[in-house]
């Protein structure tokens, strides 16, 4: 028995801005009432609950704040070879976002690693437009 449905989700302006950014190969976050920038953008201010009013560009590079190494990917995972899940704090952001890092080997992964996005050839406005993050070639760790 398979439960399968191509859910079609309307995004509203804030998530829509994030996904529009992805389509344009650009990363954005929301600025909260305390000035902190959250990526992906949140629709309401974490402190006051009021609607957010400002979307700002971040990244594209950032640093890994924590990570987990998957040796045997699941068929549903974004990558079909060993990879890392990571929380990545993009430059200009205060809070990290979840994505994957194609680092080749666990030995190449570490907290503080500088990474940058690798985009799909075609982008359509989806989190999966970001194929993955990869280590910055000659990046200096934060």
């Amino acid at each position, binding site marked *: *028995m*398979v*439960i*399968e*449905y*191509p*859910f*079609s*989700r*309307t*995004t509203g*302006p*804030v998530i*829509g*801005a994030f*996904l*529009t*950014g992805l*389509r*344009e190969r*650009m990363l*954005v976050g929301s600025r909260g009432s305390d000035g902190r920038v959250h990526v992906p953008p949140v629709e309401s201010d974490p402190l006051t609950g*009021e*609607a*957010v*009013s*400002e*979307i*700002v*560009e971040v990244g594209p590079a950032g640093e890994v704040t924590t990570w987990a190494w998957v040796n045997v990917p699941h068929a549903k995972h974004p990558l079909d070879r060993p990879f890392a899940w990571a929380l990545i704090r993009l430059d200009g952001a205060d809070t990290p976002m979840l994505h994957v890092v194609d680092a080749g080997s666990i030995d190449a992964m570490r907290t503080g690693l500088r990474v940058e996005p690798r985009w799909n050839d075609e982008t359509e*406005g*989806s989190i999966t437009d970001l194929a993955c993050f990869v280590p910055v070639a000659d990046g200096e760790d934060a």
Partner: protein
Amino acid sequence: MADLTLPAALRDVEAVRSVRTPARLDYRYTPGTATSRFLHAIEQKRIMGERCPVCRKVYVPPRGACPTDGVPTEEQVELPHTGTVTSFCVVNLQFYGQGMEIPYVSANILLDGSHLPIMHLIQEVQADKVRTGMRVEAVWVPDEEMGPTLESIKWFRPTGEPDVQVDIPGEDHGTGLGSWVGGSPPEDPRAAQTHGGDA
């Protein structure tokens, strides 16, 4: 909605308004003990209900529990393949995943010897000839198509016997459960324990 300030690069491009997020999950079901017994019997062209040890009512298909008494129903009762239409509707709409020719009749059928109607199709009769109280019998799929599934009963058709009086809860209305006979509210059989009976 508060105004949203966007970075310059996103102001003049068409905004994303929706996203498709396909999701597929695979489940492997097991039917449960009572349903397994029922389906194995169906495969042999036998309709097996189960009797509640407390209220003695017969449920088909059995779900393993008497919904009135909350106890397992384990006594097997073989039922005839005939029953009575207690109510029905005529369907004029093609439903997702259904391959029926319209109009068709979906009916509540009380199998003889059981106490709760099943829902099934009525065929081999014009839709506008189906009546509450009509006697019907099961029509099985060809032997080679028989399997441990309810679809082994293809549909029901009229037997030609005279209609019978339908007797289901509430039917007589004078003492219908849930009615406010004579303008007085129904008594809650559980009132004692809901108003601090122990306190």
